[in-house]
């Protein structure tokens, strides 16, 4: 071995080693750099908290926003809020994604291409207002404007109504029909026209007709909190829940007993149970003796018309079960009968009648009346929009705020087609939702974290309450407070319109609201449970200690707390009304129609479309709120299905007869269209019935909302979506 060779070898091996190490090191650095990048956020720092109000649904839960260097990073419930008590539902948690949504509208814009084409021109706010103002003043009289907004109570919604009324417009609300049905039916029975409050928390036995108690019932966080206490309250035994539902909903699964009954037969079951209570003399004697009203006539009618055998034949629920349900109700200490907001008037009547027979009005674990009156006979946006679509109403100007009723009224592919003949459409939505997509002018409002709030939470705890708060964060994009926009339009238009607008912006109205509450000298800022109980004691004794030294200070503590509430509300409103009116006025039920299958169409009869499909709204899907939150789409279909998947629930028999395996892809076909979904087999589901998750897609909208390809609306084609539908199913 000579030296020369050694050197050469050394160079070779040394070189190879260096190359190897360098390559390895480069790779390591590449990965290390990725890590550094991932850790870059650590430099941020100052933590603050702000209060806000969740507007992902009408419940108006209080929100506490955690900010780091003024950027919101997490939402939690406001512990002082009497509705939510520090808790939030999945949509409330996900509202942060609505604020950061990458597909939010950047600012005011005007359509340039054809309607729905998606070509826009950015405007300045003055230019946008200059565009709107002449249209507002020009459209009164028969060429009126139609202003649609999400139903809401409180000074901000009132201001919206004031403006448009002064402008000669027709003002309609979504979903006025559902919201007012409860109040009007309660009014008919008792004389007290108010939203009912179901005291689920203190009930000992609950019979629910389709009320999605553990899903999205009325005020979801309140409903779920109540359910928790109902099941495992500290002071009472475990409550028992019987669910009547056409599908195996989460509530049906959590219930102690689930009775699968089609939606259109549930009223018959409710009347049948009422008849059984009366026939066996199990109705609450003490309550009826005092408040009976026309109960005797009612009893005769209902007993005659709803014999157990007929009801059993109509509903498929055996006679013994009907009798047992009645006896269980009557045998429980604080029974309560509840119903979903979707129910038709007959079912709502039957449910309130049952509550009356059980003496449930104004007692713990029963039905109370909400302290704040709801809007009297609100104009229904869906109905108004129907008239526009069929041409019987021809407004010159159509305005949408906080509402997207087109979502449930048109085919997903062409939301604009139905509004072709409306000359000018304005959307105040911060998102590119159905209405923004077809609008001529978009005037994006700030999202809920960015705006002022003054809203009365509907149907929750028996409190007189207003959720009040300031913007929790600075506006991310070029948005403008809708009421400030209206004020500017009014100033431009002048005349009575300008006079009607007493505000500059929402901020003024929030301030006015707190001043008003200060003057009323009652209630307090939102407080925790114990302080609230203490306050109630004081107010019961006729005491009220001012929570602040001055109106200004009061305003600031109320806004910090996230709202104002007065726990002292008259607790006997329904009974008082009954006494004043001389007792109950039962609506006599229609006769029991057993002939024919309601809802059965020609298509289903000739056997081409043998299955009966009913859509339902999955809990995590927003009907109200932002349409574009990824985490909610991800939760879709869980726990049973697959993430991001739209699913249909089938009875085991149905699935077997079509040889469909659980989790298999299926194609659902209706005369008007077809969609694909994932099949879930629901044990106990009614044979021949299919429940389909309704997940609206937004082909032109945000990036996540675009991803849903199984939109139930296709099954209805161009006709308005809703109700049930005859379909057939095959494997995809």
């Amino acid at each position: 071995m000579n030296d020369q060779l050694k050197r050469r070898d050394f160079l070779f091996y040394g070189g190879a080693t260096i190359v190897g190490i360098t390559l390895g090191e480069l790779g390591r650095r590449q990965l290390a750099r990725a890590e550094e990048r991932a850790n870059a956020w650590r430099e941020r720092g100052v933590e603050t908290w702000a209060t806000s109000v969740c507007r992902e649904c009408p419940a108006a839960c209080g929100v506490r926003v955690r900010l780091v260097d003024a950027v919101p990073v997490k939402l939690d419930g406001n512990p002082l809020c009497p509705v939510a008590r520090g808790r939030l539902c999945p949509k409330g948690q996900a509202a942060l994604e609505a604020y950061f949504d990458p597909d939010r509208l950047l600012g005011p814009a005007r359509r340039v291409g054809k309607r729905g084409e998606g070509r826009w021109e950015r405007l300045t706010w003055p230019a946008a207002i200059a565009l709107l103002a002449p249209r507002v003043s020009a459209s009164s009289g028969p060429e009126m404007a139609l202003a649609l907004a999400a139903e809401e109570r409180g000074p901000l919604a009132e201001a919206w109504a004031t403006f448009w009324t002064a402008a000669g417009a027709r003002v309609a609300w979504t979903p006025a029909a559902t919201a007012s049905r409860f109040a009007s039916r309660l009014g008919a029975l008792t004389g007290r026209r108010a939203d009912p409050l179901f005291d689920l928390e203190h009930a000992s036995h609950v019979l629910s007709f389709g009320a999605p108690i553990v899903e999205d019932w009325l005020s979801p966080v309140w409903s779920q909190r109540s359910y928790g206490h109902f099941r495992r309250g500290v002071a009472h035994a475990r409550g028992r829940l019987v669910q009547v539902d056409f599908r195996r909903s989460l509530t049906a699964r959590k219930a102690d007993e689930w009775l699968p009954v089609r939606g259109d037969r549930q009223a018959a079951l409710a009347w049948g149970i009422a008849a059984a209570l009366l026939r066996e003399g199990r109705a609450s004697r003490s309550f009826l003796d005092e408040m009976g009203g026309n109960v005797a006539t009612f009893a005769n009618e209902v007993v005659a018309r709803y014999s157990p055998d007929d009801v059993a034949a109509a509903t498929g629920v055996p006679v013994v079960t009907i009798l047992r349900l009645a006896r269980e109700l009557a045998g429980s200490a604080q029974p309560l009968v509840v119903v979903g907001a979707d129910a038709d008037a007959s079912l709502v009547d039957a449910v309130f009648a049952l509550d009356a027979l059980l003496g449930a009005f104004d007692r713990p674990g029963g039905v109370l009346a909400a302290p704040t009156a709801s809007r009297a006979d609100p104009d229904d946006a869906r109905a108004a929009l129907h008239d526009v679509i069929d041409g019987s109403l021809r407004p010159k100007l159509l305005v949408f705020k906080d509402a997207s009723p087109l979502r449930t009224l048109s085919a997903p592919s062409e939301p604009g087609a139905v509004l072709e003949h409306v000359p000018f459409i304005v959307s105040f939505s911060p998102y590119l939702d159905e209405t923004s997509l077809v609008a001529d002018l978009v005037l994006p409002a700030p999202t809920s974290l960015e705006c002022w709030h003054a809203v009365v939470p509907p149907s929750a705890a028996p409190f007189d309450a207003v959720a009040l708060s300031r913007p929790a964060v600075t506006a991310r994009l070029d948005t403008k407070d809708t009421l400030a926009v209206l004020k500017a339009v009014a100033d431009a238009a002048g005349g009575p319109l300008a006079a009607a607008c007493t505000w500059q912006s929402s901020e003024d109205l929030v301030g006015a609201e707190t001043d008003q509450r200060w003057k009323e000298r009652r209630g307090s800022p939102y407080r925790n449970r114990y302080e609230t109980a203490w306050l109630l004691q004081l107010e019961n004794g006729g005491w009220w200690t001012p929570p602040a030294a001055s109106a200004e200070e009061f305003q600031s503590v109320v806004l910090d707390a996230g709202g104002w509430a007065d726990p002292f509300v008259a607790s006997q409103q329904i009974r008082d009304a009954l006494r004043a009116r001389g007792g109950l006025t039962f609506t006599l039920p229609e006769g029991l129609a057993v002939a024919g299958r309601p809802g059965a169409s020609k298509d289903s009869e000739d056997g081409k479309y043998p299955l009966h499909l009913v859509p339902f709204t999955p809990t995590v899907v927003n009907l109200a709120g932002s349409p574009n939150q990824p985490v909610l789409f991800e939760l879709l279909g869980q726990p049973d299905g697959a993430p991001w998947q739209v699913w249909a629930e089938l009875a085991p028999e149905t699935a077997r007869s079509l040889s469909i395996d659980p989790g298999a892809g299926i194609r659902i076909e209706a005369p008007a269209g077809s969609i694909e979904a994932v099949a879930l087999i629901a044990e106990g589901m009614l044979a021949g019935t299919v429940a389909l998750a309704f997940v609206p897609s937004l082909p032109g909208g945000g990036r996540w909302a675009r991803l849903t390809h199984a939109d139930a609306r296709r099954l209805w084609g161009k006709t308005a979506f809703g109700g049930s539908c005859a379909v057939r199913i095959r494997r995809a």
Partner: protein
Amino acid sequence: MPRWGLVIDLDRCTGCQACVVACKHENNVPFSTPETAAEGRLMTWLQIVPAEVPGRPGPTPLPLLCQHCDRPPCTDVCPTSATYLNPEGIVAQVYPRCIGCRYCTNACPYAVKLFNWTEPQWPQSMAPMVNPDVSIRPKGVVEKCTFCHHRLMQARERARAEGRELGAEDYVPACVQTCPPEAMIFGDLDDPHGSVAALAEGPRAFRWMEELGTKPKVVYLREGE
């Protein structure tokens, strides 16, 4: 030394998934897409699964998260001790040490450990939304529920700054905080006066798959009487 544990009352739990969203936002867990979800790459430290549990005829929605086993099969098999049982009973992950062998994910009978298949990503507008208290995991390492350990550290700091002992209400994980029906109760299993210890001993308590000897510190309460 406390021994942290979580009680989940299935009689109260509605399967609403609020806890799932809260955990994702609190812990910077990235979103999926339909494609990544179909590939089995959905990231979630907490998830509601349909489980067969005592006292129910059919599957019932069950919040599934790391059970923080007292005898964790996952930590035994880790070749680098990147996952270990800390003295307070929290099964921890050391992201910078993990080599991504995914042995622990396979050893965990609850399938709650997740692997970062790709670099986590958020749309640009959402980047500021991340919680600065929780590190973002790089691609190639394993992660899972930490019992919101960062909240414990903050609570400790706060308590120390205020010169007092750590109280039961100081340390509340994000999922527990949001649960609408108040189905989750968190606390020290060794505190004889705490509600968690009492509930965990109660007649309705069971530990999922405890027959495997994992000794979970997540305790479920059966539905029914």
